[in-house]
């Protein structure tokens, strides 16, 4: 009952705003949506605290699809993993909803915006509370739909509408993998319920079968969580309003892939190959996206690539078996990345739509709250103690170091790149001199209270959320890992090495921050004034030309094949056939229509002749 209420409140908001939206004054629709999500959050918190006595929450099962061949029930369950996720989802969503009241104030379609946002929260909760893969898939598709609707929220701009299409289509590729995985799971186990699959695993399933299933599942995760090779939609998804980027494309929806892998961890653990693939794709994506972020100029694109990179880091940890570290990073990342996006939104709001950091600078004077909160976010993502990112990233690096020193170095590389591009952003936006057009400085303003309050709350969370999983190194109890039961390996290790490596990491990260400071606070910033001619710089600015390569290798050949099929098969064969039949009939009818003379006796005569012919033929044959 409690679960149903948590899930249904946002749905109620969606229905109310969609079907009765015109009866709400513009200012109250957003408030209603926000309050519903906030209540949902409080209920999630309640469930979270009750779970100790109550055990796992289950609602249902209600019969959903019930045929002789196939059976799937509609039922919600909330174990510790789900509760952690849903508290995070509803909490961050509520904050972002409140923020959006300020951010979207001027928009004529504000009620529609909030109805989509509520629908998204509903589907996201459905996704994490599903007790079987099919229902999870329903939520999975639902969040994809909302992502599409919200990316293209300002659909009158054809660029934005195209970005929405792109996100939707690329996600379909991954979703196909997920769908095939569900089919394979059903063939293998005869059920899609997590618990039933779990019990059947004991009986032993072939490794190859497991590898197939997990790789297909991972394909779905790759699409949703924007990993190589399906990551190109996420930067374009920044076309949506900034709260959408914060909620869907940073904190919640894109982490669904991580959640899926954690949920299916029992399957993944059985296939070493899949685990290797997951961590390899993860770390490659992390490095790749972080390097692109080094030379972007759109404030939201930098954050988008940063998100891709951090998600890569989470997959990296998953592949190493450090599910707890990955979930921990997922949660802290949700807080600080949502914070960073909302700060970016606040900056954009203050600058009246300017997104290019080349035309910013010195904003710390005008927007102090945004500046401080964004700095906290940047420190958290860079992994400076005692901010949350430090603990969560440390967990991932520790797992990497246990697997192999080389992996640790790669992880360190990601951290360094992260801190460099984040502080490049901070210094270019808030320090130095203002580089916008003359006359645009004075109207810059700090955002209203309704927007800055969520920033402050998220900033506090970014600072303290590290405490939920303090590693044993600092005398912590790894609460999150134990609570969710995700701790797979007790990390013994000797503490001296860990300390040394951690200090190395910290020193290197601080070095990167200083480097960024030197480069981007002077009067003359080379990157800003001139486009670079260095090949590597151009490669990074061009995002490794991945979009262009996809265009050339996949989209264009497809378009050319379609063109050929159209001009040859469609026009020359199909059309010719159909039109040929028509032309033949009309040619023949030109002759035979004269048989229809209109004279009844003529018809009767032929009728009698015909009958006689039939009789005669019958006699002789």
């Amino acid at each position, binding site marked *: 009952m409690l679960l149903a209420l948590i899930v249904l409140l946002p749905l109620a908001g969606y229905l109310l705003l969609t079907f009765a939206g015109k009866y709400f004054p513009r200012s109250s629709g957003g408030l209603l949506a926000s309050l519903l999500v906030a209540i949902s959050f409080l209920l999630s918190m309640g469930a979270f605290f009750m779970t100790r006595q109550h055990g796992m929450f289950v609602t249902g099962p209600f019969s959903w699809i019930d045929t002789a061949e196939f059976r799937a029930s509609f039922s919600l369950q909330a174990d510790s993993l789900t509760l952690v996720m849903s508290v995070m989802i509803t909490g961050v969503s509520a904050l972002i909803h409140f923020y959006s009241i300020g951010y979207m104030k001027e928009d004529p379609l504000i009620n529609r915006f909030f109805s989509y946002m509520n629908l998204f929260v509903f589907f996201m909760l459905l996704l994490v509370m599903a007790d079987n893969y099919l229902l999870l898939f329903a939520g999975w598709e639902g969040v994809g739909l909302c992502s599409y609707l919200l990316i293209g929220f300002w659909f009158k701009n054809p660029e934005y509408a195209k970005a929405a299409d792109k996100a939707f289509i690329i996600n379909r590729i991954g979703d196909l993998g997920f769908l095939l995985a569900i089919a394979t799971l059903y063939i293998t186990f005869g059920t899609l319920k997590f618990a039933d699959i779990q019990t059947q695993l004991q009986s032993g399933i072939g490794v190859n079968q497991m590898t197939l299933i997990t790789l297909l599942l991972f394909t779905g995760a790759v699409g949703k969580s924007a990993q190589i090779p399906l990551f190109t939609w996420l930067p374009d998804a920044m076309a949506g309003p900034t709260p959408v980027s914060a909620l869907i494309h940073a904190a919640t929806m894109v982490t669904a892939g991580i959640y899926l892998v954690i949920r299916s961890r029992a399957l993944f653990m059985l296939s070493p190959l899949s685990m290797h693939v997951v961590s390899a794709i993860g770390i490659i994506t992390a490095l790749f996206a972080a390097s692109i972020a080094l030379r972007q100029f759109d404030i939201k694109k930098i954050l988008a690539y940063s998100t891709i990179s951090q998600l890569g880091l989470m997959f990296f940890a998953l592949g190493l078996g450090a599910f707890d570290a990955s979930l921990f990073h997922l949660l802290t990342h949700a807080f600080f990345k949502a914070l960073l996006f909302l700060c970016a939104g606040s900056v954009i709001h203050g600058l009246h739509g300017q997104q290019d950091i080349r035309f910013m600078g010195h904003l710390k004077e005008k927007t102090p709250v945004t500046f401080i909160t964004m700095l906290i976010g940047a420190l958290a993502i860079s992994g400076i103690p005692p901010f949350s990112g430090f603990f969560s990233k440390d967990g991932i690096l520790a797992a990497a170091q246990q697997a192999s020193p080389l992996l640790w170095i790669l992880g360190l590389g990601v951290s360094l790149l992260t801190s460099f591009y984040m502080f490049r952003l901070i210094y270019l936006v808030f320090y130095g001199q203002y580089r916008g057009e003359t006359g645009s400085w004075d109207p810059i303003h700090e955002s209203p209270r309704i927007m800055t309050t969520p920033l402050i709350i998220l900033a506090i969370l970014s600072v303290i959320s590290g405490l939920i999983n303090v590693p044993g190194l600092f005398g912590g109890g790894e609460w999150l890992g134990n609570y969710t039961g995700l701790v797979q390996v007790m990390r013994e290790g000797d503490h001296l090495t860990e300390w040394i490596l951690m200090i190395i990491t910290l020193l290197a990260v601080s070095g990167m921050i200083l480097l960024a400071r030197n480069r981007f606070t002077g009067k003359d910033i080379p990157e800003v004034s001139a486009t670079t001619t260095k090949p590597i710089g151009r490669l990074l600015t061009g995002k490794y030309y991945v979009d262009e390569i996809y265009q050339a290798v996949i989209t264009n050949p497809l378009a050319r094949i379609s063109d050929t099929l159209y001009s040859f098969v469609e026009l020359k064969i199909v059309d010719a056939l159909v039109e040929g039949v028509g032309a033949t009939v009309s040619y023949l009818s030109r002759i035979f*229509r*004269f048989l*229809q*003379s*209109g*004279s*009844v*006796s003529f018809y*009767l*005569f032929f009728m*009698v002749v015909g009958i006689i012919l039939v009789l005669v033929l019958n006699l002789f044959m």
Partner: protein
Amino acid sequence: MINYQSTLQAVPLNWYILVSLTLFCIGAIGIIYRRNSIVIIMCIELMINSVNLLLAAFSAYNGNADGQIFVFFIMVVAAAEVTVGLALIVVMYRNINSTDISLFNNLKW
């Protein structure tokens, strides 16, 4: 009580066949050559009744009543058909004041 079967069988079967064939041909030729639609309907009735006669004769010769039952059905259907046909002719007559079939030739190519 008169024995119908033996009475009927007093005439050889060939005569029945010959009569009904003649009637049938008269009907068919009438349909082709006559112009008046009422006569055409009468010709149709003639053809139907020639068949009825044949059925009754065969039935009597075989000592089997099935053919005669058929005849009753055919008569009922023929009555219905004539009703429809005559109704059509009435409508035709109201339109052009004639029942000449050759005047109804507007529906062509």
